[in-house]
Structure formats: structure tokens, C-alpha cells
């Protein structure tokens, strides 16, 4: 599968030294193992380079100022020329580090023409009311559609409104273009354990017995296949609520998918609600389940009182 990156998810206002973020390193490493190819549209590359060059210039200026200060104070030092220590990162090399195949994609003439037409006519996914005729986003959209059409599917990672808004749903669905707003969402899609997924698993393990007792046809041993859309709400004693869409393995090897909502009080899961329970895409006997597990979880003890007191002191309350 081709995975197309928009510039906004790579955007950094500081100079990247040796590596992209841990999430990206993990994503590229997974892509390498699964044989996926990373596509960097030329637009993304140019925008990344521009932002990095700005950071490089700022850092160079800072170093020159530091040298001037040392000189003005007659402090001896060995001058190292800024280009020797401050270097512009090469995006392609950074991606390649994980071993994944990466390609820079130049827009075709057809991509340009179609993007140009949509920008001028304010056609989908361009917002009809938008004043700015954002060609760059539409060009990336055209490249992503082209790859999805060619291969039967593709992933676009972007937070840009043009790419993620529902106006593009029909067109994306028709060619199998899957859109994610962050690299973490793609990791969840690939069933890679994210920090949020790990936390959900910590919460599920103590209540596995309760799920079995409620009649869910699950494996005897905890068998979590994937966690998606995890969300938590913080309380004063730790996490107070947790939500996610989870996929579990049944005892006969099928896939059980359900939404889970948990209420946690002082590190005890007090309420558990399962909704839209499906087994291999078919609704289960019960549409939903509500349980009162009353099971303790072992999460880090919260130090909220100390932190809020410290903040109050700062504000002078």
C-alpha cells in the first residue's frame, strides 16, 4: 500500500537533527515490515524544506551572536563554522533510515489541471465558501486519489481541512483512499500498540473475567487484537473515564468488535458499557451490555493535589 504524507503532519518549527519523531520512526519501520511505500509529494518536500531552512537560519544567527558575545568578552574559543554543525535535514534520508521504500512524487500535468479546475470552481473537497484557492492541498489530494485508484487503496495522512472534511468522503471511498489525521491513527490501524492502546489493555485485563461471565464468546486468555479511537478523561484521582473501539478474539477464532466505555473511581473500574457488539461484522445476540465489575486497576498514583496547590500558589490564590 502507498502511504502519502501531507506537510502538516511533518511540520516542525525547530531544526530536526538526527531523527523524525518516535511515532514516525515506528510507523516507517512497520511500513517497511509490511512492504508499504511512503510517498512524499513534491509539495510536502518543498514545504518541509522551507520550514527547516527558516529554523536553520535562526539557529545560525544565534550561534553567530554567541560568538560575538564571547569575542566582546575576550573569551577564547575555537570557532566552528555554522554549516559544519548546523545542517538542514534531508527528509528522504530521515524516512529511509528505517529501511522503508520512499518516493518523491511529482504532480502530473493531469494532477495540476484537475487541482486548478477544482480550486477555481471551488469544487469538492475544496470548501465552496473558502476565499483562499489552496492549490497545494488539492495537488496532494489528486496524487492521493491517483495512487488509491491505481492500487485499489492508499492512505493519506493529513490534518488539512481540504483533506479531512466530509466533502471528500464519497470520492475517497470510491477509490479506497483511507484518511488519517495523525501517524498514531495509522499505527492503530496497523494494530501497532500505541501508548493509548497500551493503557486501554491495562484496563481491559482486570475485567476480562467479567466479559466472559457476561456471556461474550471470548478466548479464556486475554486476547486483544486492536484498539482504536482511545480517549480518556482525567479525574482528580487518576483516569475517571475511558472509551475506545476494541477488537477481541473469540474462542473460535472470530473477531468481536465493540465500543467500550468505562467509568473509573479511584483506580477501580466501577461501570463498564459495551455497545454495537459485532462478531465478524454481524450483530451479536445483545446490542449492548452494562456491567458493574468493581475491579481495581494498577495505575500510577495521581499527585493532583500537590500539582494544583503548586499552581494556586503561582497564581496567588
Amino acid at each position, binding site marked *: 500500500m502507498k502511504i502519502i504524507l501531507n506537510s502538516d503532519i511533518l511540520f516542525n518549527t525547530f531544526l530536526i537533527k538526527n531523527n523524525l519523531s518516535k511515532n514516525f520512526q515506528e510507523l516507517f519501520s512497520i511500513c517497511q515490515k509490511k512492504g508499504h511505500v511512503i510517498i512524499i509529494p513534491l509539495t510536502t518536500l518543498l514545504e518541509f524544506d522551507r520550514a527547516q531552512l527558516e529554523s536553520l537560519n535562526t539557529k545560525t544567527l544565534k550561534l553567530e551572536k554567541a560568538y560575538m558575545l564571547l569575542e566582546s568578552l575576550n573569551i577564547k574559543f575555537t570557532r566552528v563554522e555554522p554549516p559544519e554543525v548546523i545542517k538542514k535535514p534531508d527528509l528522504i534520508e530521515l524516512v529511509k533510515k528505517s529501511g522503508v521504500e520512499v518516493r518523491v512524487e511529482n504532480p502530473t500535468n493531469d494532477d495540476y489541471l484537475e487541482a486548478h479546475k477544482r480550486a477555481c470552481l471551488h469544487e469538492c473537497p475544496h470548501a465552496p465558501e473558502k476565499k483562499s484557492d489552496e492549490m497545494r492541498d488539492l495537488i496532494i489530494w489528486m496524487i492521493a486519489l491517483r495512487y488509491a485508484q491505481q492500487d485499489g487503496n492508499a492512505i493519506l495522512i493529513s*490534518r488539512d481541512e481540504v483533506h479531512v472534511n466530509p466533502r471528500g468522503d464519497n470520492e475517497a471511498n470510491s477509490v479506497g483512499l483511507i484518511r488519517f489525521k495523525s501517524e498514531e491513527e495509522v499505527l492503530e490501524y496497523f494494530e501497532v500498540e500505541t501508548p*493509548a492502546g497500551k493503557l486501554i489493555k491495562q484496563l481491559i485485563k482486570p475485567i476480562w473475567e467479567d466479559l466472559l461471565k457476561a456471556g461474550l464468546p471470548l478466548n479464556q486468555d486475554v486476547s486483544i487484537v486492536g484498539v482504536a479511537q482511545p480517549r480518556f478523561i482525567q479525574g482528580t484521582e487518576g483516569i475517571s473515564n475511558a472509551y475506545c473501539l476494541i477488537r477481541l478474539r473469540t474462542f473460535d477464532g472470530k473477531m468481536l468488535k465493540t465500543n467500550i466505555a468505562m467509568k473509573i473511581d479511584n483506580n477501580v473500574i466501577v461501570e463498564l458499557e459495551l455497545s454495537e457488539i459485532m462478531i465478524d461484522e454481524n450483530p451479536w445476540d445483545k446490542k449492548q451490555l452494562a456491567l458493574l465489575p468493581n475491579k481495581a486497576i494498577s495505575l500510577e498514583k495521581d499527585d493532583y493535589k500537590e500539582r494544583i496547590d503548586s*499552581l494556586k500558589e503561582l497564581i496567588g490564590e
Partner: protein
Amino acid sequence: MNLKMGSQVFHDVQIPLLWGSRAVLQDNQGRLSLIDLGGDKAKLEIVGDKPAPGIEFTPVSDGFKIFNKGNPIYIYYPEEKRLSSIDLELPECQLSEWEIRVGSNVFSGNVIAGLGVGIAVTKDGFAMGAPLPPNLAKLVI
């Protein structure tokens, strides 16, 4: 309010650093708190490097993502003291012992006194020393 944050001395300012509508404060242990002043009442979002009670969040590598009504709005990286906007259209902000970085601009060793806001960051840029923007909730918790 008087405090030292990211090597700046803020003296008699109401809000030392305003990131969009969010007041950013650093306690004596170096931990950041964020308070959204964009509504009728001040809303705590981060207290001492951790999500505040009632706030929807999800952990990410080295940090956590804050949500508003189901939409991710920004990520905070506690180790790096870095705020990265997702849906706020604001430049990244980072505090270290020796500077405050806003996008690619760096503030270091300044004294800001007698103003509503020490450093105000908006989607269009930033200002050092600014009056308190209108319609902000009072900074009380």
C-alpha cells in the same frame, strides 16, 4: 503576577505567556499548566504537566493529546515542555531553562514588566508585551 519562566522575568504581568486563548504558567518545579481563558470561565486543561480533571485526552509517545468536544486540538510533550497545535493554528511553543521558543523565534533573558500579557502568541504572529485581549475569562482556578 511575578515569575521567572524560560529565562524571562515577568514582573507585574497578568498573564506571562498567552498561547492563543490559553495562559501558560510554569511552577517552581518547572512543570507547565495551561488554562483556557477563551470561554466564560477559566478552564484548566493541563495542571503541572498532566491533563486536568474533566479533560479529554489520549497519551501519545512522550506526551498527550488534548481534545475539545471530541476533536484533537493540541499535543503537549512534558519532557520537552513543548506545545504543538493540531487544530488551533498556533505556532509551536517550547520553554527551556534558557529561552522561550515561539515557532522559530526565540525569547531569552528579557524582563517584561507592568503589562497585561508578557508574550502573546496568536495565529498571525506574536507580541512581546501586550494589553490583555478583550473577552478573556479571569485567570482564577
